[in-house]
């Protein structure tokens, strides 16, 4: 006759077996249960990689990611893949700044890199390359441009701990500059300024009817040879037509003085040239040197961008024409600035002309065989991948669906069976 202890143990053993069966039934139910329409799985930035792996193995119907910084490019792509696989992905991240960076080789014989940065207004942006800081910009008014004479590797823009990065992906094949006009001090000193900053210059300067002074080999604009054309005087109809064709094919042109009123350049001109404005003073100030220059006012077209205004009158403007770019200057005696300006005038005049040419120059880019993992605009890319952010989830809506791991269930069942076996062996049952 079984003792009282054996009866208790037998009851416990039955209970353990029943628990094992219940746990197995639970595991079967968990694996077979349908997705819950109302349940939202959530994750924060720190736990995103683990959540992504879990959501890939058992795709939930809806997920919501709360971010305090932009996710890594791979995580963002993973979220996009999960979204395309059918899971509704929402996110919030009000603390992520709208930061973006773009870099390109400067179209200048001096080389260097132009860095464009977009950041929230008043943000302080630090710019650095792979080796050292390049510059920092305080109180950005939405966007800023920085020129880095030398840079190495990936260039980063940082606002606090948030970072965007970009790498120069091409280099530029050198091209010459063609100067067209007539023999004049402006022609001489524009050519000098460009040559002194490293540009190779072809020139065609008229000096008498049917007679030109020429420099260089190629005196007709061609995107295969010329980065830009500087037109200092109204060209002949045939040359004007060649300049217009060159610009439409992607070339850059700078029209100065009254040249923009030439009939042959009418289609590409930035605007009509108006009356001459005399300077209030011919004394050159170092910080505003062009105030001492007279200029012809411009009446720019509606699609033009105004580059420089003086007393409400447009002195310089630019526009795109098909694949090319045109800048038009009312100034036609910048040589006075170089010759009669203050101590910095010589360098300033050179740099101004060189940067003008760079800004319109035809970019003959040669791609660099370089793979990058840049993330130039993390927030913009996130919106592109997942759509606009949604409101943060409230306390009631948050929470993850209860889903014990299979390993935990297996361990629990193993423990129950071991306990049941031990109980039977201790009481001498088989």
């Amino acid at each position, binding site marked *: 006759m079984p003792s009282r202890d054996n009866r208790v143990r037998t009851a416990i053993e039955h209970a353990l077996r029943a628990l094992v069966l219940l746990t197995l039934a639970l595991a079967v139910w968990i694996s077979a249960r349908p997705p819950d329409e109302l349940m939202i799985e959530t994750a924060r930035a720190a736990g995103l990689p683990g959540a992504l792996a879990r959501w890939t193995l058992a795709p939930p119907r809806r997920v919501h990611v709360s971010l305090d910084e932009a996710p890594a490019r791979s995580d963002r792509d993973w979220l996009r893949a999960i979204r395309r696989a059918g899971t509704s992905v929402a996110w919030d991240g009000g603390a992520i700044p709208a930061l973006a960076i773009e870099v390109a080789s400067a179209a200048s014989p001096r080389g260097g890199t132009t860095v464009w940065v977009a950041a929230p207004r008043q943000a302080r942006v630090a710019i650095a390359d792979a080796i050292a800081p390049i510059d920092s910009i305080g109180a950005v008014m939405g966007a800023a441009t920085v020129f880095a004479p030398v840079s190495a590797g990936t260039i980063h823009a940082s606002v606090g701990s948030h970072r965007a990065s970009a790498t120069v992906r091409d280099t530029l094949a050198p091209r010459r500059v063609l100067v067209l006009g*007539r023999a004049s*001090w402006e022609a001489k000193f524009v050519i000098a300024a460009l040559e002194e900053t490293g540009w190779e210059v072809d020139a065609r300067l008229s*000096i*008498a009817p049917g007679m030109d002074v020429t420099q260089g080999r190629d005196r007709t604009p061609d995107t295969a040879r010329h980065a830009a054309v500087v037109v200092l005087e109204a060209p002949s109809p045939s040359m004007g037509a060649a300049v217009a064709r060159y610009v439409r094919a992607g070339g850059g042109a700078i029209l100065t003085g009254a040249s923009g009123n030439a009939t042959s350049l009418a289609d590409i001109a930035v605007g009509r040239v108006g009356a001459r404005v005399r300077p209030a003073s011919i004394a050159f100030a170092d910080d505003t040197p062009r105030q001492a220059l007279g200029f012809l006012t411009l009446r720019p077209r509606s699609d033009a961008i105004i580059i420089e205004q003086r007393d409400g009158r447009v002195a310089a403007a630019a526009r795109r024409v098909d694949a090319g770019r045109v800048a038009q200057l009312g100034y036609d005696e910048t040589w006075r600035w170089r010759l009669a300006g203050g101590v910095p005038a010589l360098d300033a005049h050179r740099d101004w002309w060189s940067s003008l040419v760079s800004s319109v120059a035809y970019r003959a880019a040669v791609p660099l065989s370089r793979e990058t993992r840049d993330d130039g605009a993390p927030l913009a890319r996130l919106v592109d991948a997942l759509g606009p952010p949604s409101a943060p989830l409230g306390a009631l809506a948050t929470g993850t669906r209860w889903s014990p791991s299979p390993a935990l269930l297996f361990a629990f069942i193993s423990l129950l069976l071991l306990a049941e076996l031990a109980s039977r062996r201790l009481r001498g049952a088989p």
Partner: protein
Amino acid sequence: MREFVFATAQYESGDWDSAPLVPANVIDSIARYTSIDVAPTGVIVALSSRDIFRHPMLYLTGHLPVRFTTAERANVTEFVRRGGFLFVDDHNHDIDGAFHKTATEEIHRSAGPLVELPNDHALYRAFFHFADGPPTTSHELNGWGDNLVHKHLQGVIRDGRVAVLYSNKDYSSEWGYHPDNKRFLAIDNTKFAVNVVVYALTR
């Protein structure tokens, strides 16, 4: 004022105004042969004043020794550095005269060393072609002065351009007559002046 203005440099030592007819004659030749907008009269600018920076080409001549003042020397240095073109002509057409010695010293001191320009230099093809280099002057051919025909001009070269052109061929005498008298010449002897101006305007 977008036209070319012929400017004569006035310096304190010597006789800067020894060739008063040259500017009008050169201006006449420029107007006669080219389409360059040229002012009908020249100007005189003090070498020590900031006015020289309004005229990228300066003509300087004389017979007597030249000694620049400190201000003149500083101005010439800055003028050349900024790309100005200084044309200096020895009105004595001799090689060891007082003007030559002192002017070349001053040029060396303020602008740099003078070098001989080859006779196929761009200056001699800037407008008219002078296959043999600088045209000789009647004073050289007549055996006045040092009794030599100077085969070369000299120059201070900056960034591949002639910044200072130095002549001891006495073009100041050669071109020093009223332009109306060109009609009496078989060959206009001021053609080289056009080359000098065109070179200054285009190089």
